[in-house]
């Protein structure tokens, strides 16, 4: 599109704005911090009820004062229109805050300009007060399928000299301007807010309420309405009294809906950028401005998605330097034009889009370059494919569980989970799920900012979870005997036996074998062995042949859940001699008591517990600890927070195993206990951890180990952004994958050789057969160990990819013998825990190298003094001795 035509489009907006007498500046009227966002897309149209569960799961990210959902890609029959009308007509959704405004709106803004193919009021329940989670009566919503009348559009094109613009684009602009006028007349300009446009794209719908998002599903009866893409938003407006939902997300552009978590520091600047292009916000929130920006970049400037993302989240620092020259030139031009319009601050967008030009539906997630908001992506492959984006992994799990109940072809365990890194050297901070028609059926791909496809595990043989054949399936007598023998004494043996046979067995064999294990438990010993062996199957990586790892994990996970649920209940009348495990769940929480007889382990079914507060499972665990329990298994987690928190000092005798989608702050502040997370973990884990052991069989989220003071921590996979910020004392951490960015900022953990702390970053990942792949670049982030004054980071970096530019206050030193002796015991424990062999870590292209050739050490540029360096008169020994005396109570008198 040439610049002249772009200018004409912009000029047409100028005329529109000039038509109103508006003040020169725009001020943000609604502050909001954060929220919970979720979105998913599916190759099958799926009903709205599936957005219900994840929305509910993220209640604690909203405050019930604003919620919204959007959907793209409907089934025409459900809407009572033909496919042609659904695809070609604009689907106007107008909210009437005052029912009697409808006539005026229609007379003024619908009937004169549009041919209306169909229209209807959205059905609602009779009494809004019967829907929990609604604060105010939601607006009446009318849906119109419209096209601009031919003569009206002709006149519009002639008036603005848009003859050389695609007629459909001109029509888009007309619809856009008409909505602006409608909002201006019935919303922005008037004291009484009467009506506003919820959405005006094609094949797209937005609904919002004052209340929680999931209330929409019930109130507007869209439980069974099917669509390919759904997004939802729980809002946390700080303003207390909200009486209409116009400020809630999602916000609409032509053919897009956007939800947003975060806020802008430069609302004014972004708004100015828009005003210079005669685009004027009407609802005065960050989110509206975001969608206006996106709309400007795509519909007016016709940028490709890559360039839109670059304009929103400009590439900077090392990431920029690493771009190819041609791209640098282009990006520089984009930044020069749009930097003032690029949102500054923490933000994460989820966008649902009907991409007409490419004939595809899209679901996008875009993060700010510093990755300040939490975000997780997931892909489920198979006959039915699902792409998901959310603030928390647990919301993804909840969505998949909900979907899988409806469509058994969908496995509740995703094939891949990942985070976006806000840097163009790697993924560009954005991922796009594309749904396109391929030979008559819908297929999905996922690409990053540059259109690079996301790789998925190779396993192709799916399992039909609906089949009950495994129940009647007889495993070979030899297998049965083997398993029964192992069940007596040897959990690792049992695991190895199963592991070695998975690739040759059928799914039914595996499922029947697992079922046999769970059925044959009878006492503490067999429980132990069953739990351990199944847990190892869940935790470790191994070859699976053509089977899908996600499906194996689901089978194993379901059997583990079954096993835990079969534990004797704590509230049962009958005692269960010979079994030291006891089960407690939300319903039985009142029955908590001290352990009796030989009871050792409290198994907590976290499902059903609120994620925080007095009634939470974490509170129950704390109570149980105070009553004398020391060994815990928490399973069935759906985002429960603070697990292991609050137990206070010296908890060396406590052991906690966590299964399911555990939540934020897990293991924060622990002092002595051991916590193992059997799966991926969420954000803010191990904040101020003092002592103890934390093992994570998976990835871990944002702000891992913030302000940590000690502990031994092992992560099998990656850490997201900002791990180990402001860590002091002596934390000793092994991260086997990589980190997104800002690892060890302001690290102050003493001298590693003198009781200080350090991080070992191995930079490895797993192939489909569970083998270790050594990453080419262990740390792609732009900043590592910035402002650090103590401790060290040992990076497995044989290719010497880590460069000075990434260091801001740190320097690279070669590894010496003392260093290797220091880290070796931790690598050995790492090998024991995760089966990541030191032998493999020391290889480059299959050849063994010395540790000095493999590991590099990052140390602070300006290191502090140790007390050994101090003169006598600067020592506070006496004072410190007194502290110890006070701590032990000796000096209290």
């Amino acid at each position: 599109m040439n610049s002249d035509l772009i200018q004409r489009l912009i000029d047409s907006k100028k005329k529109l704005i000039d038509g109103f007498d508006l003040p020169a500046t725009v001020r943000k009227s609604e502050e909001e911090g954060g929220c919970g966002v979720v979105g998913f897309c599916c190759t099958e149209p799926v009903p709205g009820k599936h957005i219900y569960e994840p929305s509910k799961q993220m209640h604690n990210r909203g405050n019930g004062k604003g919620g919204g959902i959007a959907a793209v890609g409907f089934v025409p029959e459900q809407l009572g229109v033909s496919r042609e009308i659904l695809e070609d007509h604009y689907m106007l959704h107008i909210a009437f805050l005052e029912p009697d405004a409808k006539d005026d709106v229609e007379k003024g803004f619908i009937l004169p300009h549009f041919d209306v193919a169909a229209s209807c009021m959205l059905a609602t329940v009779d009494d809004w007060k019967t829907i929990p989670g609604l604060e105010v009566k939601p607006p009446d919503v009318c849906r119109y399928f419209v096209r601009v009348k031919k003569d009206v559009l002709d006149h519009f094109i002639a008036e603005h000299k848009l003859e050389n613009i695609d007629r459909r684009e001109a029509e888009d602009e007309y619809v856009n301007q008409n909505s602006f006028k409608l909002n201006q007349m019935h919303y922005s300009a008037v004291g009484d807010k009467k009506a506003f446009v919820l959405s005006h794209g094609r094949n797209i719908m937005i609904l919002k309420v004052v209340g929680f998002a999931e209330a929409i599903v019930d109130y507007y009866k869209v439980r069974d309405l099917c669509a390919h893409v759904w997004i939802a938003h729980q809002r946390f407006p700080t303003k207390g009294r909200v009486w209409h939902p116009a400020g809630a997300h999602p916000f609409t552009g032509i053919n897009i809906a956007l939800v947003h978590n975060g806020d802008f520091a430069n609302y004014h600047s972004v708004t100015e950028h828009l005003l210079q292009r005669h685009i004027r916000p009407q609802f005065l929130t960050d989110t509206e401005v975001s969608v206006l920006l996106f709309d400007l970049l795509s519909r007016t400037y016709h940028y490709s998605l890559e360039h839109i993302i670059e304009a929103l989240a400009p590439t900077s620092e090392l990431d920029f330097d690493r771009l190819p020259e041609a791209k640098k030139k282009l990006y520089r031009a984009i930044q020069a034009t749009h930097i003032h319009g690029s949102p500054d601050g923490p933000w994460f967008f989820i966008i649902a889009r009907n991409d007409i030009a490419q004939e595809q539906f899209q679901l996008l997630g875009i993060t700010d370059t510093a990755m300040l908001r939490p975000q997780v992506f997931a892909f489920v492959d198979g006959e039915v494919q699902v792409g998901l984006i959310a603030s928390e992994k647990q919301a993804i799990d909840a969505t998949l569980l909900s979907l899988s109940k409806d469509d058994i072809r969908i496995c509740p365990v995703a094939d891949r989970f990942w985070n976006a890194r806000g840097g163009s050297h790697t993924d560009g901070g954005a991922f796009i799920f594309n749904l396109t028609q391929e030979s008559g059926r819908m297929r999905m791909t996922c690409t990053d900012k540059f259109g690079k496809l996301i790789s998925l595990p190779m396993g192709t043989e799916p399992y039909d979870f609906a089949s009950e054949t495994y129940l009647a399936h007889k495993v070979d007598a030899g297998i049965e005997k083997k398993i029964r023998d192992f069940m007596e004494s040897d959990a690792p043996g049992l695991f190895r036996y199963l592991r070695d046979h998975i690739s040759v067995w059928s799914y039914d064999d595996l499922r029947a074998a697992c079922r046999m294990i769970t059925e044959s438990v009878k006492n503490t010993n067999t429980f132990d062995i069953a739990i351990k062996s199944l847990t190892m199957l869940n935790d470790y990586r191994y070859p699976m042949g053509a089977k899908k790892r996600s499906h194996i994990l689901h089978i194993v996970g379901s059997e583990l859940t079954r096993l835990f649920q079969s534990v004797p209940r704590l509230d049962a009348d009958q005692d269960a001699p010979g079994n030291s495990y006891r089960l407690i769940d939300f319903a039985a929480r009142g029955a908590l008591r001290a352990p009796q007889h030989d009871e050792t382990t409290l198994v907590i079914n976290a499902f059903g517990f609120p994620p925080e507060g007095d009634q939470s499972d974490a509170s129950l665990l704390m109570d149980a600890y105070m009553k004398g329990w020391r060994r815990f298994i928490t399973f069935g987690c759906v985002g429960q927070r603070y697990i292991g928190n609050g137990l206070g000092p010296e908890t060396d005798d406590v052991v906690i195993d966590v299964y399911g989608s555990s939540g934020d702050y897990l293991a924060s502040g622990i002092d002595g206990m051991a916590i193992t997370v059997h799966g991926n973990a969420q954000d803010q884990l191990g904040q101020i951890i003092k002592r103890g052991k934390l093992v994570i069989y998976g990835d871990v989220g944002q702000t891992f180990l913030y302000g940590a003071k000690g502990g031994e921590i092992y992560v099998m996979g990656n850490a997201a952004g900002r791990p180990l910020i402001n860590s002091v004392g002596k934390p000793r951490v092994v991260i086997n994958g990589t980190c997104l960015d800002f690892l060890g900022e302001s690290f102050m953990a003493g001298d590693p050789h003198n009781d200080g702390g350090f991080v070992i970053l191995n930079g490895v990942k797993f192939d489909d057969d569970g083998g270790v792949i050594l990453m080419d670049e262990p740390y792609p982030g732009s900043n590592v160990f910035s402002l650090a004054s103590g401790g060290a980071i040992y990076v497995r970096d044989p290719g010497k990819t880590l460069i000075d530019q990434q260091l801001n206050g740190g320097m690279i030193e070669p590894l010496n013998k003392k260093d290797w002796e220091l880290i070796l015991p931790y690598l050995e424990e790492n090998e024991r825990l995760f089966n990541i062999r030191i032998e493999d870590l020391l290889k480059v292209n299959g050849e063994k190298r010395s540790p000095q050739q493999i590991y590099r050490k990052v140390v602070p540029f300006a290191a502090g003094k140790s007390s050994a360096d101090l003169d006598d008169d600067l020592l506070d020994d006496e004072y410190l001795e007194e502290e110890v005396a006070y701590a032990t109570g000796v000096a209290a008198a």
Partner: protein
Amino acid sequence: MANFLEIDCKLEDIIPEKTRKTRTPQFIQARTIRPAPPRYRNEISKYIILRNEERCLKCGKCVEICPQGVHVKSPGYKYFAQPQSHLCFGPVCEKKGCYCITACPEGALHIQENPMMKALGDYRWPAEMILATWKMAENGECPSEDYGYDFETGNSEGGFDRIRFKFPDRPPVELKEEEIDTSIELNRRHDGRPRIRIDVPWYGGGMSFGSVSNTTQLSKARAAVAWNTFSCTGEGGFMERMRPYDDHMITQVATGLFGVREETIQRVPIVEFKYAQGAKPGLGGHLLGDKNTQAVAKMRETVIGISLFSPFPFHSVYSIEDHQKHIDWVKHINRRALISTKVSTPNDVDMVAVGSYSAGTHIIHLDGGYGGTGAAPDIAKKNIAMPIEYAISKVHNFLVAEGAREQVTLVASGGIRNPYDVAKAIALGADGVVIGTVEMVALGCVRCNRCSAGRGCPRCIATTDKTLAAKIDLEWGAQRLINTYNAWRNEIVSILCRLGLRSVSELRGRSDLLMHLDYTNVVVEREA
């Protein structure tokens, strides 16, 4: 005693045994007012009396006439001691008929204004306000009018210095001083957590071990015990030796998380989240390397001699739902704790406050831009945050409009220098205030703004040097603060009497009792 134990369940049900086990008997500090004379032999004074020894007959007339005991001749000594100038009222004695200068038969005495008065203090803390605070710390009373100290306002020509009370000529109701209630409630949420009341409408602000000496911290803590209010650890660890004061301590969880452990959170009745300081919003916290001594580094588990930064902001909190998660975390760890959220005063401070309230905080602590000592960069002080007097009323009014005012306690800090500032802040809409600099002044601070440099503080208050810190005697330090609190409370009682109000709660939000000189046609005469 703080009534934090008034909770429906027993301590052993809510605090793990190993935290409880380390509880020590709580320190008892009587609310007794005793003289706590200056540490230095010649305290800085407004006037200097010079004695011409050659002319002096040693007749003793000056001793007889002076009601203040400026002139001292110890028995058995031939000469007079150097005049105790800091006790001198100055030329006002002439009218009172006790002027030693004219009474001296030989004209051996000479009075002059101390040239130090021009160097001491600054516009916000003029020399006379510092001297007055010292008098309060010494005797527990506001200095008598005879001194002529103007401590009600400073010379900043802004902030509280442009705000005055519109005192009626006579009180609308006659009240006895004993009837006046100066206590305030810190938990208004009725959420089952303790309903803590403090006896005076202020508590001590956070000062870390590192920024100040432990003696300073302990003095603050003892004053808090005596007056049944609180002191705050600041961000630098919660020392073992502070255990006997646990019930009167607020522990701070700030962005560096230095010294924060579950145990330290579980020890106290109030936990404060420090997001920002009004003196340097957006800049985090700093402790320069020289003050990071062996003991400080040990407490914070860092390396010695390195400057320590608390980042801005919390890396785990970038939005309101993160803040709620953060609060829920501390509420989970400490089931009886009240939560205070300390924020600076940006333009949208009202939104911040309401957001914080809805996230579950009990106390909203607004830290305005007038505070800060030497450790805050000059460029930041007074230049970034919104003036506290605007922030208080903005937040108060917004909370009222949102229907949340009665469920949350609002405290203000940042340049609360004297009892009038306290009363003004409350009249503008705060429930109470948090004080900082004034406690340092009571301990002898001269506002030299060298708190951060070297090993800190020529007056031995904000230092981590053990030799310097030892110059302050703990008993003395505590007494100075207890005395100051007493003087403040008395003055607030008298303000309330003059206004005819029975309690500080009645004063809250009564901005109608105030006038701002910029918008009022009243000529206020400053004393020369």
